[in-house]
Every structure is written in structure tokens, then in C-alpha cells.
């Protein structure tokens, strides 16, 4: 499990559909290319949604971490 220098932590806990993906698509372009953001969420679906979104937009999910009550997703801006 790597440690990342994250540019931002985005708190998406408890958001309703489809706000996690809408918000990441608005927020990621605000950091530099190559930068990583940390997303905090409680949505199990985000573990499939974020990688799928990253694939279609040319970005990358570098890692996901889980504990009861919290999911962390590390997203790298590639484009």
C-alpha cells in the first residue's frame, strides 16, 4: 500500500446519485496533470464507478482502500 502525496481530499460521503461522479469530473481538472486526489466516500458502487469513469476520461484510479464505514479512492489526473 503506497503513500501518496495527495493534492486534495474530496469528501463525497453520503452524496446522492450521480453526484460523486459529477463532482470528480469537475474537481479533477482543477489539479495539475500527474497530481493525485483522495476521495472519501461511503458508496460501495464508487469502487466500480470511479475506475469506469477514469477509463472513459483517460484518467487513472491508482488505488482504493476500504474500512467499515469509509472508502478511499486515489485518482490521478492524466489528461
Amino acid at each position, binding site marked *: 500500500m503506497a503513500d501518496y502525496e495527495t493534492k486534495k481530499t474530496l469528501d463525497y460521503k453520503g452524496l446522492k*446519485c450521480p453526484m460523486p461522479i459529477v463532482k470528480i469530473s469537475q474537481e479533477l481538472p482543477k489539479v495539475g496533470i500527474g497530481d493525485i486526489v483522495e476521495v472519501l466516500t461511503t458508496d460501495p458502487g464508487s*469502487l466500480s464507478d470511479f475506475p469506469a469513469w477514469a477509463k*472513459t476520461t483517460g484518467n487513472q484510479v491508482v488505488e482504493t482502500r476500504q474500512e467499515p464505514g469509509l472508502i478511499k479512492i486515489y485518482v490521478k489526473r492524466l489528461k
Partner: protein
Amino acid sequence: MEGILSPAESAALKELFEKKLNGVMRMYLDTCARCGICVESCHVYASMPEVKYTAVGRAEVVRKIFRRYFRMQGRFAPWLGEVLEFDEATLNAVYDAAFSCTGCRRCMVHCPFGIDTQQVMAIAKALLIGADREPKVLSMLADMSIAKGEGIEETRADYAQALKNLEGEVKAIWPVPEGTSAIPYEAKEADVLYVALAGSHSIVSAAAIMNAAGEKWTLSSFEAVNFATFVGDSGKAKRVAQRIIDEATRLGVKEVAVVECGTAFRYLRHMIGPQKFRVVAFVELIDRYIREDRIRLDKSRLPESVTYHDPCQIARNSGIMEEPRRILRAISDRFVELRPNREENWCCGGGGGLVAMGELDFRMKSSRVKADQLKASGAQIVTTACENCHSQLSDLNEHYGLGMRVEFLSHLVAKALVLPGERFRR
């Protein structure tokens, strides 16, 4: 000249238009008597009285293009007026028409010819896709859903783990026997495939209710909502839905139960053709559990007055109107109706993709009539059975200072579940 499309671009748009011209659509385009009965039906016009926000005003944009390219007079004598050429201004008008319409179909209920303005707007949306002017956020969400379907095996184990981590929240509402999963996933011999949304709120209460009813169910890997339908991209909409059809078929379930989401339900119930399974809305399932005495509900847990917002795609466009009322009468003595209600209910103003698109200012202004209706009910809680409506009602509540609480119907039911041996008030 600026604003004029090239002949090739215009020809391509004309071809797209023509593809949508089936018999019903020609009837919609040819038969409007301009009687104006639909004018007052639209919540947008009722809240912001401008002609472009009437159903007939919206459809007229498409009709003028139809006359220009598909009718004798428009082709040979466009100077006679009442026609629109493909150019920048026309495409702007097409966008305004299509994406200020929530597709609620309240206008259709009142039109003497049954003209479906939402269907007419499907032409407008097809033209916008052809001109690369559709709302990009909606296309992005549709593309995400399709990519999720293609890559699901890569993330399945992580998703399964996240569901295990969530089980505690379900068990806190309704305990399950040791060794039993509170959120069954990929369960063999399940009767029901429950399709949720992004967000654990769409899983936890529903799981507790199904467990309480002793349902043999399993959770889908996919989100029910279909953003391609908002964009008007029928090809992508089919691919998004196909993920769930394939999953349900593979698991051999008898029913697909759709989370509280109007768009998802309407598409899966009405647009996917005959399948080996039935499609039910989650409110239908809850109603069935109550009628079959599979769950018991305690009325004393909901002391506040409560009203119900009929989601357009569940009520007017799918006929599910009595089920939520039976459920509410089982959990409350203080249920009050909104006026008007059922198929006459005002749209919340958040449909058609507007919530995902943001558009807060337009959504609030165009739904003043909804805010007035909620206020007039005097209820302390407004409940509904659609995620999109819930988001819009929450925004209206805040914007207009209504001081209500907005709740999902399933959440109220989960809070009222009576455990075996518990005392309760019927």
C-alpha cells in the same frame, strides 16, 4: 457567414430528423390544433410565464424545422414564414426547448390529441447529439455506465468487500441469523434482483425491508439509473440497460426490483421488451409485503404529518399511484395529499437530467409552483419514491425556506419495521 451550418452539416441533421419520423411522430407534428390547452399544464410555464416554456411552444421549434425540410410549403416557399433553417440560432432554440422540458408528460394528460411533447423533444435531443451540443455531463455519465459494464469483473471483489463492510448498518435495522448475509450478492437461487444507485442510502433500508420480508434477493452490480435516456441517445440507453438484463438473466431471477428512481424504473419496465423476468418498482414490492403480512409496521414511529410527491415516471407515466398511498396509510395516521395529485401532480422540476446538469437557478425558478403546492399541504414531511425528485425537493425546501423534511418512502418504512415480539401500533 457566421451561424450558418454547412450544407453537409444540415443534410446530416435532416437525416437524423428523418430517422425519428415514424407514423406517431408525424401525427404529433401534424395534428396540433394550437388550442393552447396544454399551456397551463407545464410547471415551467406556470412558474415562468414565457411562451417558449409552454409545451406547444417547445414543440413548435421542432415543427418549424419539420415544415422547412419535410413539407412542400417549407421546401419551396420558406419565405412564407413559420419555418426554421438549421443554423446557430435554431440549434440554440432546440437546446432551450429540449432541456427546459423535464419529460414529465403532464401536458399530454391534458392535450385532446394526446400529443406527447416529451417524444417530440426526442427529435430535438437527437439533433443536438448530431450537432455535438448535448449536455456533456449526461453523456459522460452514460459512458461511465457502459464502461462499468465492460469492466465489472475487475472491480467485483472490491465491491463485494464494500457490501460486507456495509452489512452492519443493515443489521442495525433488521438482524439476520449468524452466517447469513445481510446484503446478498451474486446469490444463487435468488428470486429478486434489487438494482440500487450510487450511494449506500439506496441499499441499506431496502436490504432491511427485504430481509424482514424473508425475500430471497440479491444485489445488482450496477446502478439502475440510465443517463443515456436523458441525453436522448437510444443506442447508449440500450447498452446501459443490457447490463442489468444480462445480469438478471444469468442469475435466473423472477423479478428485477428497481430502487426508488423514476427514470430507471420507466425504462426497465416499459422499454426493454419481453424478458424472462418481471420488472417491479420498489414501492410495489413494499406494498406487496404489507398486503401479504410479510412485514409489520409501527405507526407510532412517525408522529409528524406527511405528504407524498408522485414522481412523474412512477405515477403518471407508469400508473403506480395507490401502492405508495397504501404504504403511507400503514405507517402514518397523518398522511395528507398534495393538491393536485396522482397523474395531475406537478412535476418536481428536476427531471430530464436537470439535477445532474446542475442548473440550480433554472430548477428553482421553474418550480415555484411546486414549492407553493408543498407549502399549501401544511405537511411537516414530504416523502417520495424517486432519487431525482428527492434531490430536487431538497433543493426546493432549502431555496424556498419550506421548513419540511424530505424523506425516501423506503427509509420511512425501514424505520417503522417491527421486530418479532415487539409491541407496535397498527
